[in-house]
């Protein structure tokens, strides 16, 4: 028993959390140059690149947190296995998380929180996804049959179990981009929301063209020299079309939605993508000890979820709910930001979210606000391009955005940035960075 004199330890004051740097491999459209790379291969490359940029070879970090959305069952310990293959000290602990497209940002939140609480001094948040090297499972029927055979205690029982096998059981189960509760793909969900909000094809194509142009310009000015390490001979995101224009995008046929009103095309939706990203977060003291200059500070974050199954809300609308809560907690308005990073799952997602914040009815009825959040200065939106141009390897997108925004804030000599990421399952993860 502890002695009576042992007093309860007072909680420590939270610490500022620095975003020290980031590194990712170029993102590549699926079934392209990374077709044979596994999640572990790509995450290892992203982390090793981060280690090299920051001189962390042999360093033990507090933890590495990462995840993948499309994950093989053998990768149950993906992040720890990755750490063991990197140049980090093998005594660096690691764990996996998964929150669909919010995985990367959620990983950063988790590491940041532990740093703020003083539980770790430095850590890496990452994410990876391969739509090429996807896990293919055996069918449910075959799986049950094999398990039954495995349980059998005699040859007879085993034969009986295996006799239950049917040809249809041999069709493999391929992962689908479908919401389990609605049977609709994410694009189909988005098309419904876009139609409901009257998002035009032109507006979507404009946003997509801007994304490509901004990303290309960022590459040209060497912005990504600090953030991207080539992989398998690829040195720029393969989805990037520097010469993209509204005219070219307007020729594409709709991919989601029905009839004349269909506005969503392959050009204003993100393609399936392979890639990985990693972000180094640390306390001020750790950064100073390692002679590393923080790019920005991780201020706060919020997550939200919507009931898209029965609640008549759009699948990807959760960030619209998360942001006002985050703003209120930090005493900020939507206009108090120098940069906005709104993940372009689809051009329509960004436009719907912005429109919702401008809509008095939505803000009053759904968000419970007296006045709408209002509009933003669109010239501050996704200034270095976003997922429409870079591509969107689900779990890697958060790391891409956190590192890019932190670098942008540093380059601008200070400021505040808002990150908003929608995720499958009707979820949204948002965060504030400052420099």
């Amino acid at each position, binding site marked *: 028993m502890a002695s009576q004199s042992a007093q309860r330890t007072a909680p420590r004051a939270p610490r500022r959390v620095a975003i020290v740097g980031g590194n990712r491999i170029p993102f590549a459209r699926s079934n392209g140059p990374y077709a044979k790379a596994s999640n572990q291969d790509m995450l290892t*490359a992203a982390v*090793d*690149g981060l*280690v*090299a*940029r*920051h*001189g962390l*070879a*042999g360093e033990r970090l507090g933890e590495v947190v990462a995840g993948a959305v499309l994950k093989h069952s053998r990768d149950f310990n993906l992040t720890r296995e990755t750490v063991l293959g990197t*140049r980090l000290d093998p005594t660096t602990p690691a764990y996996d998380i998964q929150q669909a497209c919010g995985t990367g940002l959620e990983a950063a939140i988790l590491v940041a929180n532990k740093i703020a609480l003083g539980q770790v001094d430095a850590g890496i948040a990452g994410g990876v996804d391969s739509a090429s090297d996807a896990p293919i499972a055996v069918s449910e029927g075959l799986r049950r049959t094999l398990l039954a055979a495995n349980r059998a205690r005699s040859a007879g029982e085993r034969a009986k179990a295996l006799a239950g096998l049917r040809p249809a059981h041999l069709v493999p189960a391929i992962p689908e981009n479908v919401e389990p509760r609605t049977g609709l793909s994410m694009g189909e969900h988005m098309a419904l929301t876009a139609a409901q909000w009257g998002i035009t094809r032109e507006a979507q194509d404009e946003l997509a063209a801007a994304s490509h142009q901004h990303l290309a310009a960022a590459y040209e000015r*060497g912005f*990504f*020299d*600090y953030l*991207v*390490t*080539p*992989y398998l001979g690829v*040195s720029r995101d393969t989805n990037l079309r520097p010469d993209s224009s509204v005219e070219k995008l307007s020729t594409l046929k709709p991919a989601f939605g029905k009839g004349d009103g269909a506005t969503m095309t392959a050009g204003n939706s993100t393609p399936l993508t392979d890639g990985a990203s990693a972000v180094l977060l640390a306390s001020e003291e750790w950064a100073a000890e390692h*002679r*590393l*200059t923080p790019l920005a500070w991780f201020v706060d974050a919020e997550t939200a979820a919507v009931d898209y199954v029965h609640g008549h809300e759009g699948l990807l609308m959760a960030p619209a709910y998360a942001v006002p809560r985050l703003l209120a907690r930090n005493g900020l308005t939507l206009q108090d930001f120098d940069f906005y990073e709104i993940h372009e799952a689809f051009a329509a997602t960004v436009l719907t979210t912005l429109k919702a914040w401008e809509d008095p009815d939505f803000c009053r009825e759904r968000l419970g606000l007296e006045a709408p959040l209002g509009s933003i200065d669109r010239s501050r939106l996704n200034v270095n391009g976003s997922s429409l141009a870079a591509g969107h390897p689900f779990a890697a997108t958060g790391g891409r955005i956190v590192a890019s925004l932190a670098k942008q804030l540093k380059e601008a000599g200070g400021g505040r940035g808002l990150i908003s990421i929608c995720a499958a399952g009707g979820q949204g993860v948002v965060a504030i960075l400052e420099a």
Partner: protein
Amino acid sequence: MTDLFTTIVSSPVAKRVGVPQPTRLRRYEPGLPLCEGPVLVAGGGRFAEGIASWLARAGVATVSTAADAEGKIGAVVLDLSAAADPGELDQLRLLGAPAVKALKRNGRVVVIGTDPATLTDVAEVTTQRALEGAVRSLGKELRAGATANLVLAQGDAPDGVRSAVEFFLSGRSAYVDGQVVRVDESTSGEVDALRPLEGKVAVVTGAARGIGAEIATVLARDGATVVAVDVPAAGDALARVANEVKGTALQLDVTSDDAGRRIVEHATARHGGLDIVVHNAGITRDKLFVNMDDARWRSVMDVNLRSVLRMNDAILGEGGLADGGRIVCVASIAGIAGNRGQTNYGASKAGVIGLVTALSRQVADRGITVNAVAPGFIETEMTARIPFATREIGRRMNSLQQGGQPKDVAETIAWFVQPGAAAVTGQVVRVCGQSLLGA
């Protein structure tokens, strides 16, 4: 980097039928003895005594005549720095010939002279200048991995002579043969033999692969913290090198206007200073002179020469390279001998030699040395792509009858940047096995 031809000509069968086999060169490994003893130290110049006692301290046996060795000799150090009359050159033969006859595999001949440029008496200048011809000829006669090199002292200070003699005796100079190094009167004192670069911050450009990666590795082995620099497109290979040497990777194009500033910023912010810069980044864009286009000419000049001039402005500016710092450039045998199809490359690499000569004088008062290595045929991915016949000729046409390794270039650079090599500046050392080209 072994091709089919090499496999065949180095096979036991080829050996049997008399195909000449190159000797496996003795290369430096930390902790191994400096060289095999005994070392004959003779000649009666002003450095011999100091060299003999330093070798004894280093645990290497010395003898003063070949007869005393009673068998094979590891190396020969002949100090003829006092020879003032051509008649005294006899000593070279009288003292040296019996020892060279008894030289072991991978033996060494190091001759110490006085830099003729510091002398005025015609007979003296004549005598000292003669040493170079003798040493270069002897280099061509030596077999079994042995080399002959000349150290020319510009004064009486022993530190530079000792540093150069140590380099030539050691495995660091495995592929350096028939070379002349001048040393000035700078002093340096004792340095840690195992980790001579401990505490130093070194930047290596073009570090992602080949010779650059090896330079990073060797400098790190010798104790330096290495900043590995290469173009963003080579970032993945660069990351591997940086992690391997536990340094940092800096992706940048050396031809960008702010390259020098970014290198200085990175080194000082991340590692607290900048002591060593190795300008290794270089490209070839070969074409016969009459067919040479603007892009080929310009890109080679820009990467190999102009970028070095530009970066040096920032590196040698306020808050850049520390006093007592080191700059090493990578020239090429093509910059000395010229090479068909390489008017652009040859110009850039000869330019580098000019740069080293001029800059070394300019920064001497800050204790900064500026030197160059001029690699000959080095076994790299680049030379592996040379057409077969040309490659074989390049490989064999030197006194050591083989190509050099990237490590050989790196070891010479690692010597230039040692604190102990303060007296070595403005020098161009060829790492070419005494190639016949440009000799």
